[in-house]
């Protein structure tokens, strides 16, 4: 070992010692990294509580959601709530104290939430919604709106319309007794590059489409049967598989193993070449190779989300003001059309190998990934000049896109549909028939929770559940769910609002950081059965 060890008394300070901020947010930076944190800190979230007094108006769910955004340091928040604090608020809302009684609920919750994090700025709007909301530009400061039910349909419509028009997401939260729900209204297109796919499902090793340098690495192995035991036992499993694929193809008319049966036969071939007469009685690298056959001997992956993206109009017809995302997406599409594969992500799993051999192979993958990024970048630059775009897209953005190209997703709201609660309140037939058809396959029976919470979406005419089904058993379920909501008259249970507030905050973080995949539709939580479900209503 030649590694030099720093003697204790001269341990130099680390070049990358964490800052105070990195220390405080360490546990979340490990999830969404500095880029996600920056996006969060650049955000301003608006929480709107309806004016019509009905129990606690889901205000606890809203405040709990805000708590979970203030702690990780959302930039700013504003609470719009015209109510005054009542004694019953004190028994359900943790961000009020005895001094808060009869004061503005917006102002008091703002005060106690602000205590949680000095890095965050809080504001309160105490005038009724009907007064400030219609004013021109009233919603301009915000890039996410969380609305607490019930909100009169006229106001809710305005919120939905504004959010769609300015391409920001909005969330509608409902919580009463044991039941809660939230719906997300997405902009017409919501692209996500960093979807954080499961690392197990994302390997792209190109075993069936090796590029020349990878092929050359297999050539350089020579005849492996003549290698000494140590070298034979340290060939990285990827090279083992590529080596035997050549042999297989030579005996199978140039075809690779494709069916399950062929792959197991191929695995047997690999296994039969492992040396067992060595002191260990086997070879770990061959074990790894065998274990990887079924998963890795596949054509280079491309997710359906990425295919959908490439077919979208926004991807195929660029304009000078297309978002960066679409300019890169278009270049990726051209790359795919030229090569039949996406840019290589370039990451390599750990495997049995000597340090030097592993690093060599790793560099091979990285070099190929870099050259693919360079090609995509050339296309992007060409497009930029064709469209006479004024700013150039940062290289880091192109690189991040290439690294996760297969798993990029674009969620859409093509028909500009507002929250289902709003559509239901206005008696929209399409929404009612959609609920009716969803109920037919609702095995977990969670949709009745949503029906119950929205039975009075239109206060002047309660929902007729017989319009949703003719099945007597289901009708009874719907009636019971409605009664379960009625018996609490808009009163929240703290635990249930805290569950739904937590879920809403997770979604808000995904929407604001543009990382992970948000719920596309409506989520319900049934606190009686401790179950949740997601529906596209």
């Amino acid at each position, binding site marked *: 070992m030649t590694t030099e060890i*720093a003697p204790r008394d001269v341990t130099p300070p*680390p070049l990358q010692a964490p800052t105070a901020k990195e220390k405080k947010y360490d546990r979340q930076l490990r999830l969404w990294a500095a880029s996600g944190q920056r996006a969060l800190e650049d955000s301003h979230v608006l929480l709107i509580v309806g004016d019509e007094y009905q129990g606690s108006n889901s205000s606890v769910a809203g405040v709990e959601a805000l708590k979970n955004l203030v702690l990780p340091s959302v930039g700013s928040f504003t609470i719009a709530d015209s109510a005054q604090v009542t004694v019953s608020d*004190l028994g359900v809302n943790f961000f009020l104290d005895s001094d808060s009684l009869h004061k503005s609920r917006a102002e008091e919750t703002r005060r106690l939430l602000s205590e949680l994090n000095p890095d965050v700025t809080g504001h309160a709007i105490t005038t009724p919604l009907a007064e400030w909301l219609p004013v021109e530009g009233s919603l301009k400061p915000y890039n996410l709106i969380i609305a607490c039910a019930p909100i009169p349909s006229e106001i809710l419509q305005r919120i939905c319309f504004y959010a769609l028009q300015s391409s920001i997401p909005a969330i509608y939260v409902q919580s009463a007794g044991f039941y809660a729900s939230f719906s997300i209204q997405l902009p017409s297109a919501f692209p996500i590059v960093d979807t954080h796919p499961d690392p197990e499902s994302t390997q792209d090793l190109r075993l069936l489409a090796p590029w020349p340098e990878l092929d050359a690495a297999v050539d350089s192995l020579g005849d492996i049967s003549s290698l000494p035991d140590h070298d034979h036992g340290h060939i990285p499993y990827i090279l083992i598989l590529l080596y035997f694929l050549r042999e297989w193809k030579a005996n199978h008319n140039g075809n690779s193993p494709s069916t399950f049966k062929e792959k197991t036969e191929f695995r047997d071939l690999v296994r039969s070449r492992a040396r067992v007469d060595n002191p260990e009685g086997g070879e770990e690298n061959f074990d790894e190779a065998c274990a990887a056959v079924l998963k890795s001997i596949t054509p280079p992956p491309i997710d359906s989300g990425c295919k959908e993206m490439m077919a979208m109009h926004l991807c195929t017809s660029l304009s000078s003001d297309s978002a960066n995302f679409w300019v890169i997406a278009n270049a990726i599409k051209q790359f795919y059309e030229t090569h039949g594969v996406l840019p290589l992500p370039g990451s390599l799993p*750990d495997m049995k190998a000597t340090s030097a051999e592993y690093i060599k192979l790793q560099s091979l993958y990285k070099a190929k990934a870099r050259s693919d990024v360079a090609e995509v970048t050339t296309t992007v630059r060409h497009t930029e000049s064709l469209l006479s775009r004024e700013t150039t897209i940062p290289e880091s953005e192109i690189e991040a896109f290439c690294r996760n190209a297969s798993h990029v997703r674009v969620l859409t709201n093509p028909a500009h549909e507002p929250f289902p609660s709003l559509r239901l309140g206005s008696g929209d037939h399409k929404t009612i028939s959609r609920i009716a058809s969803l109920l037919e396959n609702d095995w977990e029976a969670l949709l009745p929770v949503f029906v119950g919470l929205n039975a009075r979406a239109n206060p002047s005419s309660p929902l007729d559940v017989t319009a949703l089904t003719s099945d007597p058993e289901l009708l009874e379920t719907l009636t019971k769910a409605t009664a379960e909501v009625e018996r609490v008259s808009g009163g929240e249970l703290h635990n249930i609002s805290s569950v739904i507030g937590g*879920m809403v905050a*997770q979604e808000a973080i995904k929407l604001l950081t543009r990382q992970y*995949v*948000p719920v596309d539709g409506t989520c319900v939580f049934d606190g009686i*059965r*401790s179950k949740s479900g997601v529906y596209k209503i």
Partner: protein
Amino acid sequence: MSIPISSLLTNGSATPARERWTYLDRVLSTTSPYAGEEFVPGEETIDALESSRVLVIGAGGLGCEILKNLALSGFKDIHVIDMDTIDVSNLNRQFLFRESDVGKSKAEVAAAFVEQRVPGVKITPYNGKIQDKDEEYYMQFKLVICGLDSIEARRWINATLVDMVDMGNPESLKPLIDGGTEGFKGQARVILPTLTSCIECQLSMHAPRAAVPLCTLATIPRQPQHCIEWAHIIAWEEHRKGETLDTDDPEHITWLYNTALARAKEFNIPGVTYSLTQGVVKNIIPAIASTNAIIAAACCNEALKIATSCAPFLENYMMYTGDSNDSGLYTYTFAAEKKDDCPVCGNLSQDITIDPEMRLEEFLASLAERAEAQLKKPSIRTEAKTLYVQAPKSLEEQTRPNLSKKMKDLVSDGEEVGVAEAAFQISFKFRLVFGK
């Protein structure tokens, strides 16, 4: 069945003292078709709730939420145990703590905060370990809620509560509600000790990460993690022998980081950073406020249901995934099975297949990684003889020669052994079956 809505609503207004609890009382004072038969809406149930003494284990990310939730669910007599002090990296989620609290006891600060915010609730903190307390102490509670990050502590309280059950005394059965989170994921579970699947029955669902073989660390490192583990396990021992590594000491972490970095340079391995060094050495699990909020509230919802019977409680496991690439989020609620061969609550010994040629030493080391055992410093005996014990020293020395013997020379095929570890009061029963 149809329910006349009017009959469900409470009439008249609450007394001034109860007015604070208007919304909770709507649930506890009206009937619901979903409530169990034993549910008695009204005063009796509310009194039972208020007189239930409950124990919260852990005052960290989950614990802070749990204390808030219990106080706002009408519980009045809460105890909380935590041995930790507040660190700056807690502040992104442990919302009962402020920067000025850094260094103070978590249990004490959390208890005082919630008591002050919610008048009428009494919270008794204990700044110490759960192992300091005996059965008599645990017997005083109606139920126990855990918000822990340590598997060891969960296994300890689980074994203790199982052991406390006296079939002749129903009061001795203390429901255990357990929450856990990692990043955007988590789980909430309800355990009725001896009656339903326990933490030990479910141990293999939370398998430990496979350790990197020492020879990889020593001779063929490939990943930045290998270099850090090398600095942590091998270099420290060599260069700072006798000094106890304190993963909270910045000088220690910096030394490990520099050492790992030098090794990585030597092998051309990219990616060693200070943050990764900390993560590997301290085994840091990402944690965020929102996930803790979801899991803690799901747990407290079960506590309220168990204490009042106002709705059926969870049977028995809710898995939560907030980072699904398919649906955004999903939950999976199911009944985990009670195992007859559970070493804690089962009455059969558990089969373990071993290679008879294996040495005792290797077998004991393998117990740490086996998902169903996860024992790090085990002692082992057969019915007839002691094979190896970790302590006291004299016994350890006496049994040490067995470590190098082969299993086939120590036990027979199918023989039952007892494995004990100082961290738990119970002994695990395994039946050793010869195989490969």
